[in-house]
């Protein structure tokens, strides 16, 4: 009975989310605002993966910009080639200006739709598995892992600027005109992109939910809280961690691939260290150990950033930093932990001597 109710609640939750994303949002938001929401949803897809890897797995993934950037740039390359083909040109516009007449070799495969889509999924997965195995088998963890992942993000941003890669330098790739043949100037097509992002977010949340509630999810928490102990139970914790890390990388790549056409450009500044930290802030504020905390936190922070920086261009950065400090310092479980905290206070008021109840949610996990 209880599982039946639980299942019913889950479906109801997904139904409400679907109605909001697919029905209400397009109806009440202008095309411009809907595009912004699409960007936030991309951040939310990244956040769902970070919630799994960091919140449940204890891996402080400070470099998700790497995978976000891989997805975004691979999609961007395909879109630029497709635009050039429509105009019967050999190379994208920015290469012509630079005097390049032949498509660089590593650009070539991205003229294929199938290759591009496959690469967006496969490349980050392969990189995350190899990197994860290399790092976790050597028992690199905690701050060292965080620094390593951040350094990768910094390295990628520097690489992308390098002119010999023909990736547009610090201007990145921009001016996308079509998305798989659909003109991006048409609001209907932009709305379609938004719908794809919304659908991907629902899929990401469903996948993370399954991972969190499965036996694997329990094992992942065990690895987070006692990696050595898990080893003595006959598991190799590295394999357990690689799965969560790879899932997070894959989500980041897919989100990046949608983000590029939605916002219309992708630059090294969007995939480096700063955005990588930004991904984390939303997750921390929302509540990293919960399923929806990271998703809602990421959307809320991105929305607040747009709204407040429209009015107070420089003030928001400080406010965001302050918010981050307050949450990390006083609300380690994020805003999602606030509900639990309030519930406990209320119980303390009504019941004179409550039994030592534990927090139902994982509070203050080590990183």
């Amino acid at each position: 009975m209880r599982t039946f109710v639980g299942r019913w609640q889950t479906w109801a939750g997904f139904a409400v989310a679907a109605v909001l994303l697919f029905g209400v949002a397009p109806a009440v938001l202008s095309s411009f605002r809907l595009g912004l929401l699409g960007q936030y949803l991309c951040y939310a897809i990244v956040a769902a993966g970070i919630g799994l890897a960091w919140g449940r797995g204890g891996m402080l993934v400070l470099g998700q910009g790497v995978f976000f950037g891989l997805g975004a740039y691979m999609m961007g390359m395909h879109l630029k080639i497709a635009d050039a083909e429509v105009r019967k040109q050999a190379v994208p516009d920015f290469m012509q200006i630079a005097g390049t007449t032949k498509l660089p070799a590593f650009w070539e495969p991205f003229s294929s739709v199938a290759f591009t889509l496959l690469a967006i999924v496969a490349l980050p997965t392969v990189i995350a598995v190899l990197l994860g195995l290399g790092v976790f088998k050597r028992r690199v963890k905690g701050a060292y892992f965080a620094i390593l992942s951040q350094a990768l993000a910094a390295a990628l941003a520097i690489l992308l600027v390098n002119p010999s890669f023909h990736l547009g330098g610090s201007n990145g790739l921009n001016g996308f005109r079509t998305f798989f043949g659909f003109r991006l100037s048409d609001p209907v097509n932009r709305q379609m992109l938004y719908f794809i992002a919304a659908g991907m977010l629902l899929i990401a949340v469903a996948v993370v939910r399954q991972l969190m509630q499965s036996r694997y999810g329990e094992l992942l928490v065990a690895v987070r809280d006692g990696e050595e102990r898990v080893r003595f139970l006959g598991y190799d914790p590295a394999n357990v961690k690689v799965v969560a890390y790879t899932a997070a990388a894959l989500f980041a790549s897919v989100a990046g691939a949608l983000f590029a056409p939605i916002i219309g450009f992708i630059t090294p500044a969007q995939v480096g260290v700063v955005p990588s930290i930004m991904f984390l802030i939303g997750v921390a504020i929302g509540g990293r150990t919960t399923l929806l905390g990271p998703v809602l936190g990421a959307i809320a922070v991105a929305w607040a950033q747009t709204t407040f920086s429209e009015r107070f261009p420089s003030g928001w950065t400080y406010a965001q930093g302050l918010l981050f400090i307050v949450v990390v310092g006083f609300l380690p479980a994020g805003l999602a932990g606030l509900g639990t905290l309030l519930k406990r206070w209320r119980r303390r008021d009504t019941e004179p001597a409550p039994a030592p109840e534990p927090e139902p949610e994982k509070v203050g996990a080590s990183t």
Partner: protein
Amino acid sequence: MSTDVEPVAGGNVGMGSEYLEVRGLTVDFDGFKAVSEVDLTLFQGDLRFLIGPNGAGKTTVIDAITGLVGATGSVNKSGVELLGKKVHRIARFGVGRTFQTASVFEQLTVLQNLDIAAGAGRSWWTLLRRRHGVLPAIEEALETIGLAGLADKPAGVLAHGQKQWLEIGMLLVQNADVLLLDEPVAGMSAEEREETGNLLRRIGAERTVVVVEHDMDFMRAFATSVTVLARGRVIAEGTVADVQANPKVQEVYLGTAAAGTEDLEAS
């Protein structure tokens, strides 16, 4: 789980049973020999206590057998050489251990702790699905360790003694037949010690149990055989009475540790 068989010195099953044979085990920490040339032979059904003064190398022996520290020599479990294998591989060969400080997964429930301990051989397909129901082996272990009523409580709220029992329960469902327990009764009340001792006797009948312990009363009450370590070497082995009567053991425990060791090395 209750059997009429009791653990006895030398094992209660006889030849051909499961065994753990340690030969010439040496652990060298940059020139300091924490454990040197230790031999141990353990048969199924033996409840062996490993005692010795502080720094004798008791925990290091367990660390070496379970692969936590590198060692030379040989550790043979029923025909399989364990030395040189990785920690999680050794665990899969049925060697389980506990730690001086109870290290259960505090955020997970008692049931989840046991389910994880029971699952090292699970396929990814099983792992990626939700846990339904309780495995019979886990149900049995919950009864054995007396935590059946607390199955859905987070392990973090358990009392200290209960955490240690949960750890022992995890070894049971892990299907370990060699159990290495590092000071399981440290910090326990008298009743908890009594219960732990009875628990060890119950589970020790079908397994090989090694207990590192400082508590001599506990050792006298429950050990079937005793190995005494001092300065990384085995100085005596036998029944409780044998060991207590051994002058070398008396020297190590009563005289200064330094004097005792010098004598040992001379002999």
